[in-house]
């Protein structure tokens, strides 16, 4: 037995090492995701028998006005979230100084990222509170009445997205700060000798070196926007009347609260396709960098 192990240890050990992680990840994550795609072709209440309905769930979905509201909201999330990388870069540039005491300042800027999204949701619900929130106070100071943002179908999504942007900007800021730390000083110095300053320095010398960071920041921001669930759930529960729902939240509601698992799976499938396009692009870029051809 020992000699057998010894002779085959070249591949036996690595296989044993890989097995637990790979199996767990495949069963729980990969296989589950595939199974969802299958469930989306059935009608199912989560308990009884599943009955095959073909693409009926998808047809129903494409006739569901709530689906379009959710999709539209996801797009609003995506578009507004794109403000996170530039804002993060701006704050990173602001605090990019070697001064005493600035470390604490930087740490405090990261705070929203470390808090849970639920906590951020609570913080902003309180902030937006039309009677007593800080926002209301600001409006009152200007002799105006504060809008009830979270119960106004027209503004509710924007209000939630702004709350979501808070930790996202922190995230981008961390990435850019690390990127700025890693800049090639000799390039900056050379550019300074050549007389570059301010915006020209940023555009021609600094940003080109931050390409990789930029890519990651945008990737993480896109994923964050498409994954938005916690904030919606905590701040509005998708309301009023589903007007702030997103695909992730609608899917959860349909399945867990209305027991329409097949229908929920179909929504998840649509979300998956949108995300898959993006993941494919990301993996393509990552592997290209891996092979050193980027």
């Amino acid at each position, binding site marked *: 037995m020992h000699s057998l192990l010894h002779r085959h240890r070249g591949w036996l050990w690595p296989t044993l*090492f890989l097995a637990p992680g790979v199996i767990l990840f495949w069963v729980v994550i990969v296989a589950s995701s595939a199974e969802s795609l299958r469930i989306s072709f059935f009608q199912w209440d989560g308990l009884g028998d599943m009955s095959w309905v073909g693409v009926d769930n998808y047809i129903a979905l494409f006739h569901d006005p709530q689906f379009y509201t959710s999709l539209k909201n996801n797009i609003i999330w995506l578009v507004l979230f794109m403000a996170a990388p530039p804002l993060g870069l701006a704050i990173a540039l602001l605090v990019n100084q070697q*001064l005493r005491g600035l470390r604490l300042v930087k740490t405090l800027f990261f705070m929203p990222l470390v808090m*849970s999204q639920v906590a951020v949701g609570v913080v902003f619900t309180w902030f937006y509170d039309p009677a007593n929130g800080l926002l209301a106070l600001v409006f009152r100071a200007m002799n105006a009445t504060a809008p009830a943002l979270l119960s106004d179908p027209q503004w509710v999504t924007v209000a939630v997205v702004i709350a979501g942007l808070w930790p996202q900007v922190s995230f981008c800021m961390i990435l850019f700060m690390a990127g700025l730390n890693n800049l090639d000083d000799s390039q900056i110095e050379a550019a300074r000798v050549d007389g570059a300053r301010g915006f020209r320095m940023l555009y021609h010398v600094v940003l080109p070196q931050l390409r990789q960071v930029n890519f990651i920041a945008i990737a993480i921001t896109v994923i964050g926007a498409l994954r938005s669930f916690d904030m919606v759930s905590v701040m509005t529960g998708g309301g009023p009347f589903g007007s702030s729902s997103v695909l992730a939240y609608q899917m959860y509601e349909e*399945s867990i609260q209305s027991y329409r698992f097949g229908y929920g799976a179909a929504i998840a499938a649509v979300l998956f396709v949108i995300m898959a396009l993006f993941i494919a692009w990301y993996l393509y870029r990552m592997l290209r960098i891996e092979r050193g051809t980027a």
Partner: protein
Amino acid sequence: MYPRQIGAGEPVKKALYLTAVTVVLLLWLLPLLAVLMTSIRPGSDIMMGNYWGWPSSFELVENYLGVFTQTPMGHYFFNSLVITIPSVLGVLCLSTLTGYVLSRYRFRGNILLFAVFVGGNFLPFQIMMIPVRNLTLALGIYNTYLALIVFHVAFQTGFATLFMRNFIAALPDELFEAARAEGASPLQTLIHVVVPLVRPALAALAILLFTFIWNDYFWAVVLSPSDSVKPVTAGLANLMGQYAASWDLVSAATIVISLPPVALFFFMQRHFVRGLTMGAVKG
């Protein structure tokens, strides 16, 4: 605009700069400051509509004690620890193994396996929600700690594998060649070479994972709906519904549930930032 470094001989500029940064920071943290303020004022202030004025008295101790005595937050807090700590340890073990193999062994399918780990990590949770819920039901662990632990370990292994693989791949080849030349088996190499060398990476990863898992809300709602196993995130969401008028309590609870990750972050900031930005910055 790429700012120049402020030199030591420019005290006025420095003072102006620090003032500006502080103002921006205060604006940035305004929503959080509001919650902090609310968490230390008495409930009567809120009844009276004194939300933003000077507190009539400081009720820091009362409010924070109240979180634990008047609400089940203490129990949720315990649940969160029971879920988070074993999950973090599990992921650290699994990802050290997978990261080691994927970074140090060349075999067909290596890149594919790696891509699945990375890609799976980006999947929307909803695409796996129903089958994962069914799986925990079938295993009889639905609505237990174990359901959340199993899911978190599985899911975070994706990200952690990316992390550990990149870290181990950046270690010098010769250390591993030397181990082989000295006759160390893969298991011995793992124990005597890999584990000691990746310790700093494990520290960074542990903090990240703790934050991710502690802050999870979605799976808490899906897999552990009952109060007995609910973690703090789901607990706080409940609290907001039940104690809608007691903003002093809700605010204090918000601060309480944020404390563990924030404290970890404060004490091990370097690890945290390095963890989050690994891979993002090189290349």
